[in-house]
């Protein structure tokens, strides 16, 4: 359970979120809507432990978060994955797409990657229909190739073709970049996934595809998903429940 | 008075700009400003003419010295006034000397006047110096400028000289204006500015640009001015020598044969021609040939004589080793020659000397060091030194070669100890008789020459560059130091050529 309780966030003297509480259950998709600028992305960052709220608490699987950003414990940080609203800003412009996707694995060290891969089982059994078989048996062979395969499988799963993986962010389209970000978020098999306007700039087909990928992942691992979107129709199709964040940062959760 | 470099006409205005490399530390005689005369602001009891003879200045005549040589009496000139209008009295003279000698003043020149026990002013025009021991050079020392009684150590007190102090912009220049009431006659140059520019190249460039009327330059840098019209270059002989001091207690340099061979190996003429660009003469002893005290026997060949040097070494048992360096009793003929790192002239001389020495099988390693690093090593390693005073031969030589001063700071750091030299120096210092002194100094020069205590290399010529056509500049013999002295000592007598 990813739980945010009474979160208050202020930028300077402006209160953006005022005692907002939200709970993401494992295995469920919670939609979050609300007018533009009401603080959805801010709440997402708080729940991903990337922004320290003025007051309020966040708990991951019952473990309260006491330290934020860099100081938050690694395993908590990687337990919650955040897909940023602006893919261009959220990737290191110097890395290739492959490196971007593989980065969390590399950061975790191969040992952690091995367990992550083992935890998820077959990563590549996609709905994408590419037929790319995932490697279910991680931990065998060299960790490096296991990682590489995992990256390739995930990339294929989100619909990135091989030629794109060697390019750098400015050489791909925004939608392609967003897909790399989704792959990056999934690669460590997080327990919770926060998708901040994940599909907003994607065409309908890709949008549907990515939603399927996330859903497949959720079903496979029982992860909880927080889907932030303006698109009520989309949320209606995708989410189990929808919370509405009001202007002024008051939460009106309607599940 | 900058005149365009092209305009070679003599000074149009009445300001004369002299550029010096070092700024005055102070303009107060009591703190050591121009004790050897040549100050524009102050007069001493005596002054020195271009031919180095002593002339009465504030004194009305040469002093009288008592039989025992320990009491010297001066009578003051009448009607001399300080720039502030106060008349000069013997109390002023007494005050000047006593304040300078007072340990509390920390005057850097106090040591030169160590012979003075006290100064008395029995009446307004009489000054009596009481000495601790007979000290013949005292008269030469009384060129120290006199200031009015009560003058503080800070600041610039009024003097009696041909120029009044104007203003001092620290780091930039000092201005002086003519003293129309000067007892020796009003100067023709109405204003003098002494500007400071430490670097030789900078001075040369600004001289070239016409900003200066006169300056002193190293010979090489001055060379282009020799062909410039409207500018006159004066090569002034000096007692300013460069030579190598040997540590006498070290195994290699302590060996007379090594020192002698080294000296013979020196190509002094090449040093003069190349390093000094011709502005100098080879040196073999501490006194320049222009000096009346010089012993003409102390001389040698300008070029090197490697054959003779080799012979000296062979005879002394220094045989060439496998690498060409001579060896005696398993000891290599090697030593270090230190030179102050910031002084390019000494560096080049040291290198030239070291290369000449290698030609006779002496392995000399030059080492460029800071003075503070040199100081503790002076008794161990040879050192490129520079001294020289054209005044009394007692100056400096006594301290440099007397065993009494062995190991005392920069005096005799090589620990030279020759009782005969000591005796000659003492005799010359104490005697009031010129002939006796001359003989003693001749012997002294011969002794240190035979001992090769030092290898004297060259006497420099000081090169002055003066813009315009003047009557009055009279080259004399310069000392090692030359602030406003040297060619400019008689600036007040200079007049534009018709």
């Amino acid at each position, binding site marked *: 359970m990813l739980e945010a309780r009474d979160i208050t966030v202020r930028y300077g003297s402006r209160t953006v979120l005022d005692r907002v509480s939200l709970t993401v259950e494992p295995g469920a998709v919670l939609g979050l809507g609300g007018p533009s600028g009401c603080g959805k992305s801010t709440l997402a960052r708080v729940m991903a432990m990337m922004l320290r709220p003025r007051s309020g608490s966040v708990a991951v699987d019952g473990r309260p978060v006491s330290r934020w950003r860099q100081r938050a414990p690694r395993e908590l940080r990687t337990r919650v994955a*955040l897909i940023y609203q602006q893919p261009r800003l959220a990737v290191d412009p110097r890395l290739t797409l492959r490196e971007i996707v593989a*980065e969390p694995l590399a*950061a975790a060290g191969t040992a952690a990657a091995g367990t992550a891969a083992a935890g998820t089982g077959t990563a590549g059994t996609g709905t994408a229909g590419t037929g790319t078989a995932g490697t279910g048996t991680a931990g065998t062979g060299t960790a490096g190739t296991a990682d590489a395969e995992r990256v390739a499988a995930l990339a294929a799963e989100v619909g990135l073709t091989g030629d794109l993986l060697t390019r750098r962010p400015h050489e791909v389209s925004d939608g392609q970049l967003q897909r790399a970000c989704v792959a990056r978020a999934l690669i460590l098999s997080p327990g919770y996934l926060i998708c901040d306007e994940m599909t907003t700039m994607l065409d309908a087909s890709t949008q549907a595809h990515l939603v399927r990928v996330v859903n497949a992942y959720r079903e496979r691992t029982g992860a909880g998903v927080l889907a932030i979107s303006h698109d009520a129709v989309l949320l209606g199709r995708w989410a189990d429940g929808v919370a509405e964040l009001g202007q002024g940062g008051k939460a009106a959760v309607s599940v | 008075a900058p005149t365009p470099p092209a305009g070679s006409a003599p000074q149009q205005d009445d300001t004369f700009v002299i550029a010096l490399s070092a700024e005055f530390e102070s303009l107060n005689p009591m703190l050591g400003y121009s004790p050897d005369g040549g100050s524009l602001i102050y007069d001493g009891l005596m002054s020195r003419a271009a031919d180095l003879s002593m002339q009465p200045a504030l004194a009305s005549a040469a002093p009288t010295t008592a039989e025992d040589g320990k009491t010297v009496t001066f009578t003051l000139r009448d009607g001399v006034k300080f720039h502030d209008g106060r008349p000069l009295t013997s109390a002023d003279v007494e005050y000047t000397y006593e304040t300078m000698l007072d340990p509390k003043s920390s005057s850097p020149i106090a040591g030169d006047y160590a012979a003075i026990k006290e100064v008395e002013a029995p009446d307004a025009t009489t000054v009596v110096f009481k000495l601790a021991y007979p000290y013949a050079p005292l008269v030469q020392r009384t060129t120290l400028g006199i200031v009015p009684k009560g003058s503080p150590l800070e600041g610039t007190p009024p003097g009696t000289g041909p120029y009044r102090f104007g203003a001092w912009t620290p780091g930039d220049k000092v201005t002086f204006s003519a003293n129309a009431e000067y007892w020796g006659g009003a100067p023709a140059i109405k204003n003098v500015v002494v500007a400071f520019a430490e670097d030789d190249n900078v001075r040369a460039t600004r001289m070239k640009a016409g900003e200066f009327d006169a300056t002193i330059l190293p010979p090489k840098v001055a060379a282009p001015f020799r062909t410039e019209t409207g500018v006159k270059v004066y090569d002034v002989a000096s007692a300013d020598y460069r030579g190598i001091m040997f540590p006498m207690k070290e195994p290699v340099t302590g060996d007379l044969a090594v020192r002698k061979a080294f000296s013979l190996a020196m190509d002094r003429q090449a040093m003069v021609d*190349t390093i000094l660009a011709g502005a100098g003469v080879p040196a073999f002893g501490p006194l320049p040939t222009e000096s009346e005290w010089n012993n003409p026997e102390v001389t040698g060949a300008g070029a090197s004589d490697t054959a003779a040097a080799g012979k000296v070494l062979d005879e002394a048992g220094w045989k060439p080793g496998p690498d060409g360096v001579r060896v005696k009793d398993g000891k290599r003929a090697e030593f270090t020659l230190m030179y102050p*790192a910031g002084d*390019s002239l000494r*560096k080049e001389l040291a*290198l030239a000397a*070291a290369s000449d020495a290698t030609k006779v099988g002496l392995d000399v390693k030059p080492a460029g060091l800071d003075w503070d*690093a040199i100081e503790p090593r002076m008794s161990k390693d040879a050192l490129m030194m520079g001294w020289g005073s054209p005044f009394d031969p007692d100056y400096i030589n006594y301290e440099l070669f007397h065993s009494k001063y062995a190991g005392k700071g920069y005096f005799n750091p090589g620990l030279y100890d020759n009782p005969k030299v000591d005796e000659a120096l003492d005799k010359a210092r104490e005697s009031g008789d010129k002939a006796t002194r001359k003989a003693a100094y001749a012997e002294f020069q011969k002794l240190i020459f035979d001992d090769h205590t030092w290898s004297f290399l060259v006497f420099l010529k000081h090169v002055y560059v003066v813009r315009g056509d003047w009557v009055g500049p009279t080259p004399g013999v310069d000392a090692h130091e030359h602030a406003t002295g040297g060619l400019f000592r008689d600036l007040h007598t200079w007049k534009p050529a018709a």
Partner: protein
Amino acid sequence: MTSVALPQAGRRRRSLVFAVATLVVLGLAVLLVPPIVQLDERIVDLRSAGLPPSLSHPLGTDEVGRDVLLRSIYGLRVSFTVGMVASLVSITIGGLVGLVAGSVGGTVDRVLMRVLDGFNSIPHLLLGIFIVAMFSPSPVAVVVSVGVTHWTTTARIVRSEVLSLRSRPFIEAAISGGASRARVLRRHLLPHLFPHLILATVLMIPHAIWHETALSFLGLGLPPHMASLGNMISDGQRSLLTGDWWASLAPGLFIVLPTLAVALLANHLRDRLNPRRRSELSL
């Protein structure tokens, strides 16, 4: 059609060829000449002083008759070693301090920055003088004195860049992806700093050589008669006035040429490091 004019590939290649050729020629000279032609640094030849360039002395002789070319080659070896090592030392210290101060922030940052201010308060020349004076003059002392005084510039540049970078979302994304502090530094911050670090390194080399000269001149650096480019330049200062231009031209060129060559190489390297530039040039 394109907003940024694509430079002629030929020109770029030419500059690369020039840089590499210069470095190769100078490098070969430095490696091969000393073993073949010995230089006894104390030997001068007053009788052939101040000769203009000729066959026997391709770059003439200096004021005391030493061959300028041979000394320049020896000098290049000494000075570039000193310059490069000093430069690397200062960039390394500066880079580390800047990274730590900028990324850790808080008290650590404040303290480090005040230490830096303290170092900066004393002009380099003076601090250098004191440092060398305390140890005995030698190339190592020069390296230490220059390295220890010049890290501050790099530290500040790095720190400011880190400050600006670390608030960027992509760094946050990396943190969120589980990157440790060290990894964020190494993988995400450092590569962004490379262009500045490279530039600072290249610029520090001639600067260090210059400091070596200044120290030598005060009797605190390398022995003043040693064949180092710095010494040769200060010896040649007069040649501006006396007309034997070759005495200062040669050492000057020996500093400027390799510096330019290294700078050109660095330029190419930085092109490769800039992702957009890289794809523009199809590297």
